[in-house]
């Protein structure tokens, strides 16, 4: 796996590079937007980590440029110091696959990189059971086994939990979730989704102690994060 890292701060490139190498991948660092776009034209990458504020071209400009210029565009993680809710949803809606605000823990970053590089997410849905951390999903019984107990979920709750586990550490848009679980994108159901997420969190005790946390990306969607130092 080859990962391109663009950031105007060499410390950050160094920091991210170490994480990538620890995962067993290779990386190339670029300190400005223009050199990254040149590299993207010449070379193939499996993932791009983009800073927003860079000399040359900004992250957002590169994101837009990639849509037209790069064939079979690799997934993009936007990693920036901009924390405003509007910035996050803007970047995600512009096509970024994930958004990480600096500073972030290296384990979290590693998990998010892995999530995007994970393949055949759909295929694993065919398995009758799946294990995520301390959670065992039984797709036939539609139950989740955790802490020695079978937790009963409604059909929609199970479907939602399954979707989130399969896409753990990925940011899922509300629209995607609604269309996948409810097969509708009607906006009226927005409270329904909130309530379901809340019930899953409560029933499955998805909290840092158990190695997971549900994170709301305001104005965009949800992310089930894994915490490696949990439990």
């Amino acid at each position: 796996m080859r990962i391109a890292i663009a950031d105007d701060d060499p410390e950050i490139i160094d920091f991210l590079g170490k994480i990538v190498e620890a995962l067993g991948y290779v990386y190339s660092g670029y300190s400005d937007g223009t050199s990254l776009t040149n590299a993207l034209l010449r070379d193939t990458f499996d993932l791009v980590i983009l800073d927003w504020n860079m000399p040359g071209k900004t992250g957002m400009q590169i994101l837009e440029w990639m849509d037209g210029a790069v064939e079979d565009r690799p997934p993009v993680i936007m990693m920036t110091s901009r924390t405003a809710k509007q910035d996050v949803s803007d970047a995600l809606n512009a096509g970024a696959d994930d958004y990480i605000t600096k500073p972030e823990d290296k384990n979290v970053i590693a998990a998010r990189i892995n999530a995007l590089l994970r393949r055949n997410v759909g295929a694993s849905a065919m398995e009758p059971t799946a294990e995520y951390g301390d959670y065992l999903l039984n797709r036939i019984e539609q139950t989740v086994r955790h802490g020695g107990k079978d937790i009963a979920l409604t059909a929609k709750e199970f479907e939602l939990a399954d979707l989130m586990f399969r896409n753990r550490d990925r940011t899922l848009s509300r629209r995607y979730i609604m269309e996948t679980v409810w097969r509708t994108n009607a906006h009226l159901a927005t409270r329904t989704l909130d309530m379901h997420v809340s019930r899953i969190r409560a029933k499955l005790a998805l909290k840092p102690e158990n190695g997971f946390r549900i994170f709301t990306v305001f104005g965009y969607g949800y992310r089930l994060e894994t915490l490696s130092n949990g439990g």
Partner: protein
Amino acid sequence: MRLRQRLGLEWLAVALLACCVVTALTYWDGLSRFDNLVYDQLSAIDRPVPQSDVLIVKIDEDSLAAFGKWPWPRTRHAELFDQLAEDKPAAIGFDILLSEAGDPDDDRQLARSMAGNPNLFLPLHFVFPGSNGAEYDVKRPIEIFSAAANELGQVNLVFDTDGVVRRAALCFGDKVSGSEWPHLIEEIYRSVHGKPSPAYNRLQDCDRKLLMPFAQRGGYQSVSYAALVKGEVPGAFLEGKVVLIGATANGLGDQYPVPLGDGGTLAGVEIMANLYGALSRDDFVMPMPFPLQLLLSLLPVWILLIGFWRWRPRTTIIVSFALLLAILLASVILMQFALWFAPGTALVGVILVYPIWGWRRLQATSDFMDNELQNFHRSKIDIPIMRSELGPVDVITGQAEQLTHAISHVRDLRRFIADALSNLPDPMFITDLDGKVKFVNRLAQAGMEDGAQDLALDDMLNRFVSPDGLHEVKEYLEQTNRPTKQDYVDFTSLDGQIFAMRRAPILSDDGKLRGHIHYLADITEVAHAAQQREEVLQLLSHDMRAPQAAILALLDGREGDETSGRIEGHARRTLALADNFVGLARIDASEFAGEDILLAELVAEANDSLWPLGKARDIRCEVDDQSEGAFVSGEPSSLYRSFVNLIDNAIKYSPDGGTVTIMIRVTELDRQPFVSVAIADQGDGIKKEMLGHLFERFASDDSLAHSSIKGAGLGLNFVAKVMERHGGHIGGENRRDGGACFTVLLPLAPYLEEQAE
């Protein structure tokens, strides 16, 4: 009162007055003297030719000279009748009263002589009032004469109020029941023609008097009584004629004033001759019946009254004179049709109504002008009204001059306002309801050589607003209701200035929409300042965060010695400080835009984000949620940050291994549903002197300033601002068993119908 109403009332009053006067004058015949004068003049125009078959036998001065003074012995009359009997006239009317007996022998002789004339008619008369309470007494000739006469007829004369005989009563009494007394001449007519006269047949009752035309004085053939008795008149002259015998000598008193225009009198017998002539010719003039007379008298008055509303005064006066002539002409024409229309009242009506109306109209207009001018003086206008300094004039002229001044003053004022608007320091323009530009001030017109008058609003915008802002501006202008929150729209003009455009309605006195004022405030400098502020905030939020993030990234790879731990702490504090500072600075920059938030979820996530912090010091954070899915309407980022601040504080001030409890409940405050979040720690609590200043900016516990636990200072201030913005509350207190407790109250969002799964 409005002028229109006042004039309407005045008009009604004038109309009513005119109608009353005309009706009263007609009813009481108040102008009969004038009318008679007119009648006399009109009747003189076309006098009838005397009937040739009438002969008057006059007891004149010659007769008196021949037979001595009156009364003559009745035998003298016997001689006359004997003479007449030989000449065979068609009828004889003897206009001498024979109602008392004389010498019996003489009476008998006369009666005998009378009997020799088969067509003799004798007069009877009435005495008013009658004896013994009767209405009248009938005085007949004594019996033997009555018996000798063919028929008796009444000879009453009808006097007008001026004592002139113009009319004749063809009968006396009650015609309807048949108990009337026909006139002597009518009886003669019947005898000669063998039937009642047509005029008599037409007569409905005896009270109706007919106007009779008079022939020239002395027009009827006449012979002297003396000459007839002496046999000086040839018999053929009398044969077949109607002979009327009566006194004409002045001394005998049988003389009456008649409308012959010369002021002279006419003998009763000649009046009878005229009556016979009128009966034969059937040319009586009929006085108009009262309703018709009234109607015709009112007609010209109403023509004028209605005309007052439509015509100018000049026309009205011409019409008035024309009406006067028309009334007289109507009298003349109707006279040709044997109808008498008395013109007096109609003339008086027309003459009366014009000046009265003119007076009332002038008065009303004058009062109105006075009133309006007073109002005008009273209205608060800064430019003093110029007073007329001319010499004394009449009231109306004075008012007219004042009005002129008022108008010129208004003109001044208009120019003043126009100048003021035109020189406004910001561009503005006014559109009417059709969206046409009706007024443009100097600045708004800049760069438009051809002016902007009557330009459509869209064209006006195209010349002013840069294409980027056009859509937004139009959207603002299309709003029908005025927005309550932000009643303006920002745009960049074609030459790069930034304007805030605001539209306000122009209403008429009675609240109807007349158009809109568009005011463009030049906010270029303000906008640039705001932009600079935004750049500073950007610098703080991003450019200050970036190096901190780099520091943390650098430290991440290292083994955790004490120094790197402290560096990390300082870096994180700087980050929090920047976040809170920017959050505070931005908090009121935008409108509150609440969205549905499941509060328990938000709190749980804020808590989750701080888990590593608690874990490092073995502090447990327990969330006790009994809010049952309560939603609040809020801004997720600032709320999230607030709870992070609060829980972060609780963890900071907790002893190692302590517990932070977070309780979420649905509660009520002033009967409004709220969601409460209480965050309690087991630390030392809040110092007394701090309690009142917890949420002030940079309030931080001094005693902790030197310890390793340090607050950002801005954190609680930020939380308080956020809660205020959400319509919520925050309070901090110490629990009885020690430890601080912060409670946040947020209004519960309205319940929505839960969507089916």
